[in-house]
């Protein structure tokens, strides 16, 4: 774990869960797996607080536990899972685009709460949707349940491992920590529940104080004394499935940029057909025949079989090799080369960074060396048509920033410089790792800056929230327009401008975080698939 990653995890945990949970989480990330008492001792936190913090972290799948031989339970932080918190807005937005508002809220509730039963999710989401509806209208539990089932069928949500139900005649002492298991067949099996009801509107009361974060809101489950129909069956968002979707989106988008819309639709169809049958780490999708692809094309696309075959041939012949031909039966068998596609996307990202960082002439040299694999300095000058002095300067700059590396080929065993060839080359894997580290630090910078901007304007924000709360309560009691305007004028015009600026900056920083996270996703996917192959 690099310092940048640890810092980023620390910022994320503190932002989402507060200082104590953040402290415990970061401690585990730094030190590795530790038992409870050691955590309490090292962090100087009371045992009770450590337990509560660990509960929160385990609930959100950020910490796992393991029973060791001596019976000691050790807790280990899942750093990569903590970094996934950056991607929560993207998961939620993706579900919104695929399954509309209902799906969006289901995934949002699961991410906010870590794990929930289906009945709890359905109830919460129905209530939230009802709040947004017109007076008199409510959201039916059945509709939310249907969306939940669709999410489970398409593997966007999955069941959490649970305690196995064993018939033991001899109970014996209970283990220090339960071992949770899940049968793969049951992972997406939705229990048959008859959830009948409608969402309820929240009455405006003191319980619903504005500005209080949801995590701190008192849980209402204890009020409900009815038995939970699916008690023990918890669900969580299946992040791997989302990542598969993002990867597919990136491939389709790349094909659309490189070729045209029709080619991208064909690739999208192939990926959709392979969604469930191909594992997320597979190098290729399962072979699909041209006939199958033709039958599965969206209804709006009226292209003939012949045109489809031409497109498939074009895709298979393209140097990027996103699509490959694996056989001739069924009109031709085609696969999507997932690993090659990820490699191309990662390479394109690197090229883009080099262009932004060093300029278009450096990018020219970078692409040239990528294409030719190994080149001497003179050859770079000749092919790129850049003066020798400038080319040398650019090569050294990229070398110092680890975008390029030097391969020495000695003519004599003494490696004398005058008798050694020095060839420039690009090692995509190491350049990708370097860039990934830069991305982590950049996002940490963005979060720091966003928090700083908010903190600087804290007084003004609090004033604005107080004014809004006063206006809301006056509106509820039927105050006159003049009175409301008088309250609104408590925030002066310069203050209003300042608030607008703050809002704009925070939004911009948020958007930048998401953008950088997209790059992180591509690089991480590429590094993961390349290291697995090696």
């Amino acid at each position, binding site marked *: 774990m690099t310092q940048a990653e640890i*810092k980023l995890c620390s910022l994320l945990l503190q932002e989402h869960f507060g200082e104590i949970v953040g402290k415990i989480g970061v401690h585990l990330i730094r030190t590795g797996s530790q038992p409870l008492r050691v955590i309490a001792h090292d962090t100087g936190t009371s045992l009770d607080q450590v337990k509560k913090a660990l509960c929160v972290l385990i609930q959100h799948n950020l910490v796992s536990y393991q029973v060791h031989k001596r019976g000691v339970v050790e807790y280990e932080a899942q750093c990569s899972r903590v970094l996934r918190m950056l991607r929560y807005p993207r998961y939620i937005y993706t579900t919104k685009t695929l399954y509309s508002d209902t799906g969006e809220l289901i995934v949002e509730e699961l991410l906010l709460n870590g794990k929930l039963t289906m009945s709890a999710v359905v109830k919460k989401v129905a209530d939230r949707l009802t709040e947004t509806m017109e007076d008199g209208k409510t959201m039916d539990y059945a509709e939310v349940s249907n969306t939940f089932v669709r999410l489970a069928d398409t593997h966007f949500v999955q069941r959490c491992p649970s305690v196995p139900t064993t018939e033991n005649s001899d109970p014996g002492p209970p283990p220090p920590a339960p071992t949770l298991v899940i049968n793969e067949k049951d992972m997406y099996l939705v229990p048959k529940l008859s959830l009948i009801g409608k969402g309820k509107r929240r009455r405006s009361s003191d319980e619903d104080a504005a500005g209080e974060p949801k995590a701190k809101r008192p849980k209402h489950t204890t009020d409900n004394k009815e038995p939970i129909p699916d008690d023990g069956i918890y669900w969580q968002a299946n992040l791997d499935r989302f990542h598969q979707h993002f990867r597919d989106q990136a491939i389709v988008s790349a094909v659309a*940029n490189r070729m045209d819309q029709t080619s991208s639709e064909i690739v999208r169809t192939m990926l959709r057909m392979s969604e469930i049958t191909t594992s997320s780490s597979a190098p290729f999708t399962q072979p699909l025949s041209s006939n199958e692809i033709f039958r599965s094309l969206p209804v709006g696309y009226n292209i003939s079989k012949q045109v489809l075959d031409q497109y498939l041939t074009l895709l298979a012949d393209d140097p990027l090799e996103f699509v490959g031909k694996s056989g001739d039966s069924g009109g031709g068998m085609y696969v999507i080369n997932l690993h090659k596609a990820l490699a191309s996307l990662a390479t*394109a*990202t690197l*090229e*883009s*960074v080099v262009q*932004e*960082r060093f300029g*278009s002439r450096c*990018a*020219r*040299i970078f*692409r*040239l060396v990528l*294409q030719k694999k190994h080149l001497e300095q*003179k050859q770079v*000058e000749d*092919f*790129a*048509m*850049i*003066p*020798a002095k400038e080319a040398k300067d650019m090569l050294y700059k990229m070398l110092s920033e680890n975008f390029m590396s030097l391969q020495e080929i000695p003519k004599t065993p003494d490696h004398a410089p005058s008798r050694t060839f020095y060839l420039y080359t690009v090692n995509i894997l190491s350049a990708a790792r370097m860039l990934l580290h*830069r991305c982590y*630090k*950049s996002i*940490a*910078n*963005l979060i*720091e*800056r966003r928090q*700083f901007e908010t903190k600087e304007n804290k007084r003004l924000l609090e004033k604005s929230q107080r004014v809004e709360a006063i206006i809301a309560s006056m509106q509820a009691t039927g105050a006159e327009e003049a009175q409301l305007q008088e309250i609104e004028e408590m925030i002066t015009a310069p203050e209003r401008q300042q608030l607008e600026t703050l809002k704009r*900056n925070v939004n*911009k*920083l948020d958007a*930048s975080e998401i*953008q*950088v996270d*997209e*790059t992180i996703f591509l690089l991480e996917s590429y590094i993961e698939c390349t290291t697995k192959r090696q």
Partner: protein
Amino acid sequence: MDDIKKQLVRDIYKIGLEHKDYINIEQIEEIYEKKKNTKLKRSDVVYCLNILENARACSIKNENNTITTKMRCEEMTKKLKGLSDIDFLIFTKVENSQNNGIWTADLRKQTKLLIHQVQKGVKLLCEHKLIKQVNNIHVKNRKMYILYDLEASDKVIGGSFYTDGEFNQKVVDYIRENISFYLCNNNNANVTSVINYIKNLNNTIGYFSDSEIYRVIKTLCFENKIKIYKNNNDEEMIYSYNNDKKIGFTNFPCFSCDIFNKCNFDTKTSINPKTCLYMNFYLNLEVIL
């Protein structure tokens, strides 16, 4: 040497001179037979070549077990006759390097002479206008020498894009701009039409061969601005990417920051994200220097 032999030497010298380039013994025999209608003995040819070599009128080399020879003009032969053996040795090494040239260190290695002998010899040969110095575009400090009446190869002096040993970037940029302009209006044009368009601009920029213009076209390929592909008729076509879509970040400061490695979260240091000037600029905040 009798008159017949002398005449034979003169005839072979004349044949070699007319040929201009290196000629092997079989070719000499063939040409002589055609001219004189008599067959030439191998031993006679060898005898004549030895005479000419001793007189410094020709150079002989053995390439792939084939003896080839090249005649030197009379003027050059006169000059070479006046040289010492050391200077003549240096001259032959320069001559052998042809239009690639040879630098003083290689001369020293090949002749096994001392450095001052090489330098003195080279200076004398330059004064006699037998050899000349050329600038190597790759290694400016290196003094390279070729024969006086020879043109150095493009590898040494750089070709049409080099002026006085310096790369003429403006010409290359001008050609690239014109290629982009042509492709803007004629996307999916074939390579030949692009080259012809650029050649028509030669009045302003000088003469460039097809291969040189193609090299410039390839630089646009390396910048992902165009793609070269083959159509159904196996013709090379150029497709210009008019959309300039960028991946991910565009203006975000951290990726193009030169002092990124010094950036620290500790606010006591001057370079930190909270007070970063680049970030202020990115957020359109006041930048106080």
